[in-house]
């Protein structure tokens, strides 16, 4: 990382098992503050499990999570949130039977009702959803729910924000709004760790990217380096024909989630790639990890009919 900033988050040897499956496998990394960090990996690589561990939804089986100097591994979520770590969910989890304003008020840390209401209104206004302030959250469109969930996190006054697939199912207008918001918050001193399958956005938005595969951190670096990293290419696309497998840790069990990829199912470690990915010239070898929109991961993206609300 090469900066003088002390890490805001340092993860050491983090491990989580579900029965015989190791979802997060001896994962270690550190995040310096006031940056946008990316977290990528194929489906089933452990990204959401890692987020659940960091936010206290799950307790680790081993390892440390040092957040602002305290080991918060195994802490209940509300204590971690009180220390300044906020997160969104892969599938939005608003309180659907409560209004937008009530959702915001639940998360508020301030005691003064007037201040809470003013802050909530400010955030709702920022995302252009003032007209839906008193609407039940369950009646909002998917994109609107995404925005409100993000705003709800901000009510907890976090310093580090974990965004779990914030761009999934969101239209380009909403995407731009989210990116604008992230940059505005970065300027205010927030730190982000974002996971998403929208590679174009991750690579353009993030200053450094972490890559998970089978629960293990296989690469970390600036987006350009990650694009060209053979281990990352292999994780997403499998090995080229004739190439030996890259050195890998001991095979571990895969998660119960199936890997959903656009290409045919990737080979397990140590197996040959299918002929489609032959390295011979003229056989349509794909360039190293183009990671353009729609290229490889994520599948089709549902359109969001909500617009800007």
């Amino acid at each position: 990382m090469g900066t003088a900033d002390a890490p805001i988050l340092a993860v050491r040897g983090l491990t989580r098992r579900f029965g015989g499956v190791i979802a997060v496998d001896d994962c270690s990394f550190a995040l310096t503050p006031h940056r946008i960090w990316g977290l990528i990996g194929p489906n089933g690589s452990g990204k959401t499990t890692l987020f659940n561990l960091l936010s206290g939804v799950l307790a680790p089986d081993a390892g440390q999570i040092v957040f602002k100097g305290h080991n918060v591994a195994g802490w209940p979520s509300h204590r971690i949130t009180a220390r300044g770590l906020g997160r969104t969910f892969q599938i939005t989890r608003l309180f659907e039977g409560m209004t937008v304003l009530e959702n915001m008020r639940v998360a508020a840390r301030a005691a003064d009702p007037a201040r809470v209401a003013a802050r909530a209104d400010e955030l709702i206004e920022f995302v252009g959803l003032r007209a839906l302030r008193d609407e039940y959250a369950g009646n909002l469109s998917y994109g609107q729910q995404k925005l409100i969930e993000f705003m709800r996190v901000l009510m907890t006054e976090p310093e580090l924000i974990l965004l779990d697939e914030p761009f999934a199912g969101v239209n380009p207008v909403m995407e731009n709004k989210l990116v604008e918001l992230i940059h505005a918050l970065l300027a205010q001193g927030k730190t982000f760790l974002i996971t998403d399958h929208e590679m174009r956005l991750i690579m353009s938005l993030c200053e450094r990217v972490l890559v998970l595969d089978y629960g293990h951190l296989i690469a970390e670096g600036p987006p350009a380096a990650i694009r060209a990293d053979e281990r990352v290419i292999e994780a997403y696309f499998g090995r080229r024909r004739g190439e030996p497998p890259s050195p890998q840790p001991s095979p571990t069990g895969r998660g119960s989630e199936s890997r959903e990829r656009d290409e045919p199912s990737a080979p397990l470690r140590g197996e040959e790639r299918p002929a489609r990915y032959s390295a011979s010239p003229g056989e349509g070898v794909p360039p190293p990890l183009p990671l353009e929109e729609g290229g490889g991961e994520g599948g089709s993206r549902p359109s969001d009919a909500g617009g800007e609300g």
Partner: protein
Amino acid sequence: MSVVKLQKPRLALSTRHSALLLAGLLLVCLALPFVASAYVISLLFLLLMWVVMASSWNLLSGYTGYVSFGHAGFFGVGAYTAAILIWRAQWEWWLACLAGGVLCAALGVLIGGPALRLRGPYFAIALLGLSEVGRIVAVVWEPLTRGGLGISLPPDAELLPDYYAMLALALAAVGLVYGIANSKIGLRLLAIREDETAAEVVGVPTTRYKLLAFTLSAIFPGVAGGLYAWHVSYIDPGAVFAVSLSVRTIASAMFGGAGTVFGPVIGALLLNVLAEVLWVRFPFFHPVLFGGLIIVILLVMPGGIMALLQQRGILPRSRRL
């Protein structure tokens, strides 16, 4: 749960008019015993008792979603506490009843911690089990409770003090629910009901809030049980620990609208007046008819009367209601 769409309500009273309406109702409740027969006063006493039971159950189960089948347990503990203190220690009846509430609060803290680690049907069954434990203790601990013989108290010839005591308890229960529903505590309890994990993640200490609701909800049936024991002058384990007490409490709250302030009040009054009418008109079949009524109500109006009135636009959507 069903989500209510925005509609302009047909009955939207201002705060001033609402306060006047409530004041008028209170005056009626205060004056009624002076013109009513002993039967009516006794009936009103029981209706208010159901208001207390339903409102206090609502505080936990309506607002957090943790459905308790153990409310009869607290009622029975309160009844026996008051009866034993009156019979053996010659305590004043009102003080003995309050002691029942205090003991139930302590039990709430003791039981709530481990019980609230369970969710859904496991929590419901655990509370049902604990209620049964209370009944069995009352049967077995004969030196203290006289077992199956029950406890007889001096006959209570004065109906009015019992009635006003239960009225005060009902006002306190509804007032507490109103205060909590319109506070940050109420919002956080609702958040727990909606999605407990998400509530934790946004900073709600869910265990603390659940325990608070559980303890507060245990106090009122404890006091109500004591008042009931004093009013009827005789209790036995089967009467005050009956599972049917819990079932009727749940049905009353859900009929009116669990998770609202006045839903359990309306439900308790209407359902138990219906029960009384059925008992008078069909003395041999009323349990069957009452059970069938509860099933029909829960199938047709799962959200209760309040939800129905709000969906039809008759009442406004408001946490105050």
